[in-house]
């Protein structure tokens, strides 16, 4: 236990450096857990689709993937900025990240869901191909939306001046989470758009 115990509220209180370390571990453990969730979803995809995939809009898929990857860059930039007390760049970069995140969701849910043959919402009859597609993109989009909300909260805290090189954990946490969701898509994208031979209503 830290030597400067008496500096804190009660015996055994935790020093800020250690708190940061524990926060990081906690978050990584949570992401490990999430990895199992997305792993399970991927397993379901391969179990049910095997070496086939539905006909999807390749350009749109590539576009949303690029958007998400670029957003990760801006998130990284925002995190670095706040660690260097550059509030202006932090706010700019995180805003770009948020906008890109929203664009991604709009691309997947707003456009691809309309085009792709998904039964429950568009009446298209494409059985298991629509179902898994809806499920994978839906679960991922849910996490992106959560991420966007987190980013908005962090941006708001930064805007209020609550974040600094001393107190950057919220920004770092949001960034790690954002990168994680991004990496998940890096696995989902090929599983949905690239792997296996195309089957579909037109084939």
């Amino acid at each position: 236990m830290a030597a400067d115990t008496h500096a804190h509220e009660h015996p055994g209180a935790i020093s800020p450096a250690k708190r940061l370390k524990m926060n990081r571990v906690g978050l990584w453990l949570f992401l490990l857990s999430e990895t199992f969730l997305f792993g399970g979803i991927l397993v379901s995809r391969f179990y049910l689709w095997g070496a086939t995939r539905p006909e999807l809009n390749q350009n749109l898929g590539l576009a949303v993937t690029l958007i998400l990857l670029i957003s990760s860059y801006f998130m990284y930039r925002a995190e670095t900025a706040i660690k260097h007390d550059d509030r202006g760049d932090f706010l700019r970069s995180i805003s770009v990240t948020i906008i890109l995140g929203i664009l991604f969701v709009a691309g997947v849910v707003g456009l691809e869901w309309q085009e792709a043959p998904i039964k429950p919402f568009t009446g298209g009859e494409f059985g298991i191909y629509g179902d898994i597609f809806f499920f994978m993109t839906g679960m991922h989009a849910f996490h992106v939306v959560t991420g966007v909300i987190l980013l908005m909260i962090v941006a708001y805290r930064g805007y209020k001046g609550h974040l600094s090189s001393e107190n950057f954990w919220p920004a770092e946490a949001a960034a790690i989470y954002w990168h994680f969701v991004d990496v998940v898509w890096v696995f989902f994208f090929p599983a949905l758009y690239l792997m296996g031979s195309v089957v579909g209503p037109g084939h």
Partner: protein
Amino acid sequence: MNRIVRILLGFIVGFVAGIAVLVAVRVLLGLTPMPATLAPVLFSGIGFAILGLLYGFEPSLGLTRGFIGMAIAMIVGVVAVTHFRRAMGLDPAYALEPAWTMAAVLGPIGFMLGVGAVTDWLKWIFGIHTPDQHGPPEGKPAWTRYFGFDQNHKVIGIQYTVTGIVLMGLAGIFALIFRSELAIPGIQFLALDMFNSLVGLHGIVMIAAILLGIGGFANYLVPLMIGASDMAFPRLNGFAFWIAVPSALLIVAALFFGGWDTGWTGYAPLSVRGAMGVNFFMIGVFFFGFSSILGSMNLITTTLYMRAPGMGLFRMPIYVWAVLATALIQLTGTQFIGLSFLMVVLERLFDLGFFNPAEGGNVILFQHLFWFYSHPAVYIFILPGLGIVSELLPVFARKPLFGYKWIALSSMAIALMGFLVWAHHMFAAGMEEALRVPFMYSTMLVAVPTGVKFFSWLGTMWRGKLSFPTPMLFVLASIAVFLIGGLTGPPLATVPTDLFLHDSYFVVGHFHATMFGGFVFPFFAALYFWYPKITGRMYNERLGQIHFALQTAGFYIMSLTMARTGLLGMRRRIADYDPDLGIQNLHIIMTVAGFVIFFGVLVGVYNLIVSARKGEVAAANPWGSRSPEWQIPSPAPEHNYEEPFEVVGEPYDYGLPGSVYVDMHPSGSKTAASPAH
């Protein structure tokens, strides 16, 4: 007097209000004010009456606010979805299921808002300072902190444990109801659907009770044992407990929504076709999963980062190893049961086809996902219990734990190997045939690390100086009972014999023995053992022995008759059986034995409740244990240790003259005052 009037009034006003709310909601939905059957009226009335009762006790309890939040959120869910569907021109009659599903999703959120589990985080968003909370809420009696959001790990531990016992009682009553139906052939008093629902409910509520029970002890003991003042994330800890409460409510509420006739395993496609209760059951389990995941995250971080100086991993109390191994399974595996249930709920709501072969789905997928969690889950149930056995044996044998490292590593081995054996539940299910043999081998291998534990326990007892207060009696029974459960595992793990035994009462005998031996008996051993530390008083030894005798005798008879009827052809989950099988007498015996267990536990619970007030005042260390939590006063103070201790020896060196495990005052001065207090 005044208070009693208030309580009664609260009850009556609540009852009337409950009926009024029901009528109001029905009118909002455009239905006739009164439903055709009485059940919803009573449900709503009694639900709100309990709220009123709680209000009468103490005007502001977190629990009451949680219930109200849940009720409001559920009503909002039903009304919103129904009106949304009307507005979209969709069939309002079909709206029932989506509406109530939305209610089930929003309910726990409302509960968490009401109970105050997220208040601090909401404040944080707006930059409001939220100091850590210490001690009971200001201006209120100390007991109220147990009924609301609290951050102290010991309070949370007790909240978990008590909720676990309540759920265990509930699930036990469900079991006794359907066991009475089974006592003689034919249908006596339970409709078939009700019987089926009760079986599943008994199973899943017991499992919830187990998860709460192990969560309770882990929360209470781990920080104490490793010398931390609390868990790594105290707010998250409170959140993880409270989310379990509305989840359990949803699961039990399934009974009022048509029940669910699939057993606790919820196999698709039966669960896709079942009544609306399936959604309540599955969403309840889904939210319960958060509790497991967040709780284990907290426990792992705490164990890794908050150990006292000098406490290397191999100097931790052995129980902490067991908790660590358990937490690893919970953290990762739980996602899979959530996933499988989520897919069923989505399939029901949006008419998807994951498990519908007509649309290219595959029903076997459900079982793979489900068992990938639910097999490792059975090791979640037992590892902490076996840890308790390993923890208590040295104390009562006055001898070092035999093979500490082997035991510690065997917990890890069981946890990891547990992930490689799930398909042994599917040997008869039509899974990929070529995989059956590899899974048979992997399953059999789990017997090896489990055996290591048994033999090490024997080594610990050998040439000790054994004494037998109640906790030790329960420890010995744990070993004997878990042995039956464990040894019935290999015949199930061997494919050809499993094709005989699968889904028969032999399996039922197997898992009751494992769960009683691995959880129920150690749980009570732990309750009696740490009781003085928790309450500051001793339990009554005589009653403890009666509890032990009834539970052990009842259990032996119950599990052996279960296994026997299974061999004779008794199938699982049947409301009525063929008298030609020659199992009638065995069923009567089984039912009676079930009641004996129930009354045994009742004696135990009575003991624990009464002794908390009337028991002898306990010494700080009545068992002569070396573990750090026994070196401080009983009950343990708010912040555990006045001063961080230092580990200077091995944990279980009983019998080594002059050795100590922890140095309680490493700075030397016995009066090192902490200026802040």
